[in-house]
């Protein structure tokens, strides 16, 4: 797959209130950091497919599976970076169109402790209102998190320059919670009682 790196000439500048050159320079810095370790990312199934300012598209493979599976694809958007954190949109890996929550194969479970019976308790970092709505990652450093009405008290400016919201941070979170735990396919087979019918040739049916 050819990697495209450049400037998106169709980019809608009307939504960009930060000086575009500033966001572009920071975008380039994040991109170059990624590219300097591209080989290591590929070994873990993290593939950059497009990088056109202000967005970078990735696909994430579960490399422990045979055959490998494309678990999800994302578009990381650096519009107004880093006055705003990057946005993460889940997309179809081929059409690049946003996908609804119901098409996400993993919900990015985070371990939050043990229950009284010693069972691991998890919380989904992927949130959505209905299976048909746009899913988003619900943690600091993601634009959708900070823009959500539930998190108006947790401003991005409390995190900016502290490590959250960098491309590396986002990629590692996507990998750690979305890919690393996947070790096998879970197949659900529905067994139905066979229905045996006799096959009749209509031509042979008597009048």
């Amino acid at each position: 797959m050819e990697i495209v790196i450049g400037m998106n000439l169709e980019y809608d500048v009307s939504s960009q209130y930060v000086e575009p050159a500033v966001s572009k320079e920071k975008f380039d810095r994040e991109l170059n950091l990624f590219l300097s370790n591209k080989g290591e990312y590929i070994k873990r199934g993290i593939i950059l497919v497009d990088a056109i300012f202000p967005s970078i598209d990735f696909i994430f493979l579960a490399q422990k599976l045979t055959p490998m599976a494309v678990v999800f694809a994302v578009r990381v958007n650096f519009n107004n970076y880093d006055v705003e954190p990057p946005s993460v949109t889940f997309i179809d890996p081929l059409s690049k169109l946003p996908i609804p929550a119901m098409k996400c194969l993993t919900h990015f479970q985070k371990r939050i402790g043990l229950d009284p019976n010693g069972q691991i308790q998890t919380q989904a970092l992927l949130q959505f209102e209905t299976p048909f709505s746009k899913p988003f990652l619900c943690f600091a450093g993601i634009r959708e998190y900070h823009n959500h009405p539930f998190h108006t008290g947790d401003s991005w400016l409390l995190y900016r320059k502290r490590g959250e919201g960098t491309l590396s941070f986002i990629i590692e979170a996507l990998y750690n919670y979305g890919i690393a735990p996947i070790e096998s396919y879970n197949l659900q087979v529905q067994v139905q009682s066979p229905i045996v019918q006799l096959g009749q040739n209509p031509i042979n049916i008597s009048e």
Partner: protein
Amino acid sequence: MSNKQNVLGGNPTLNSYNLNFIIEGDLFTGQYDANKTLREVLEHALNKSQHTGRPVDDWQVKVAGITLDVNQKLSNLGLSDEVKLVVSLKTGAGGNSNWYEFGI
């Protein structure tokens, strides 16, 4: 050493390890005594690579997708020499478990 860390298949007999840390995308390399804990080594690597804004407990170290116990000595972690360790910030959980959920 936990079973989880045995799978790394490294060399526990080395006196020192050359470790490659990938910290927030930056590569930092150092040689460390096998008797040092990963926490000590991580603190050193974070300081030397100018990632000093966060306490060491905010970071996690992974190799091959496995989270390493930072309280273990390097010799107990099953690391191989020249291994690449990915260091990333832990992610805070937001979310709302009362929202509609389905599937996995």
